[in-house]
């Protein structure tokens, strides 16, 4: 069997008050709204990153997922900051924060701290700042998770050597409904994982791979 060119080496899922990494449940905090779930997860993970508390919920979701996925990954033993990219997507963009900002504007005084999160790609910025990533990044909006589009786009980045590793996935949040699915793609080597193709990504997203 031919070795795949690129491999999904890590993945993480956060939804319905549960965090899992590579298919194994790490943290469960039932019946809590997202803001309290996120705060409790932050403490559970000993993140020690005070800026987390200033973020909007979409960025908190992305940061939690990336922290969990990249923990013990030794990314910087293998790549320079410009060799790691981030490609994410979701359905509702930054609408959750946009609505909060709009409600404040109607009252007369709006918070600059909320305004700065009224774009969906800010979550990418927060992940990059936290991890020192400086490579190519993009954020796509679509009705549903489009594995085909993402695999094709990220394949192009990897094959053209724009990046050597890429954090990819779906970071969706609206109110207390959220779903984060992040995965790391790297050039196939000694690292174990699943071949990076549409079928793998669809299966991971649909929980068909444990």
């Amino acid at each position, binding site marked *: 069997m031919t070795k795949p060119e690129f491999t999904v080496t890590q993945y993480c899922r956060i939804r319905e008050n549960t965090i899992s990494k590579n298919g194994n449940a790490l943290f469960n905090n039932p019946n809590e709204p997202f803001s309290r779930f996120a705060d409790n997860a932050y403490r559970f993970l000993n993140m020690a990153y*005070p800026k987390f*508390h*200033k973020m909007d919920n979409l960025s908190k979701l992305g940061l939690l997922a990336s922290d969990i996925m990249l923990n013990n990954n030794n990314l910087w033993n293998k790549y320079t900051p410009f060799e790691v990219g981030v490609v994410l997507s979701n359905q509702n963009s930054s609408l959750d924060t946009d609505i909060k900002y709009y409600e404040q504007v109607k009252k007369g*005084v709006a*918070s*600059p*701290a909320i305004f700065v999160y009224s774009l969906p790609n800010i979550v990418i910025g927060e992940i990059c700042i936290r991890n020192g990533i400086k490579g190519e990044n993009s954020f796509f909006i679509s009705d549903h998770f489009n594995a085909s589009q993402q695999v094709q786009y990220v394949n192009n980045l990897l094959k053209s050597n724009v990046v050597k590793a890429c954090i990819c996935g779906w970071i969706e949040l609206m109110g207390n409904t959220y779903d984060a699915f992040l995965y790391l793609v790297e050039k196939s080597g000694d690292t174990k994982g699943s071949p990076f193709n549409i079928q793998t990504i669809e299966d991971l997203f649909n929980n068909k791979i444990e």
Partner: protein
Amino acid sequence: MTELKENLKKQIVEQLNLKDLNPADIGDDMPLFVEGLGLDSIDALELIVLLQQHYGIKLAKAEDGPIVFKSVNTMAEYIMANKK
């Protein structure tokens, strides 16, 4: 003045979401930016909103910001001097 400073410390922690910090941990003369609380440029804007919301004071000149927001002491002095 002491009560004003205590209120300011609580408002700073709340408005800037400094959840890892207790208001009592903020010294009256502790620098709010860089080596002190480590606040950033967005926090500076939030402090301007705080003055407006809680004390009805609009910072007239942007260049006064670094002086006014140097510490809780300087904020309290500015409020006392400009409160209507």
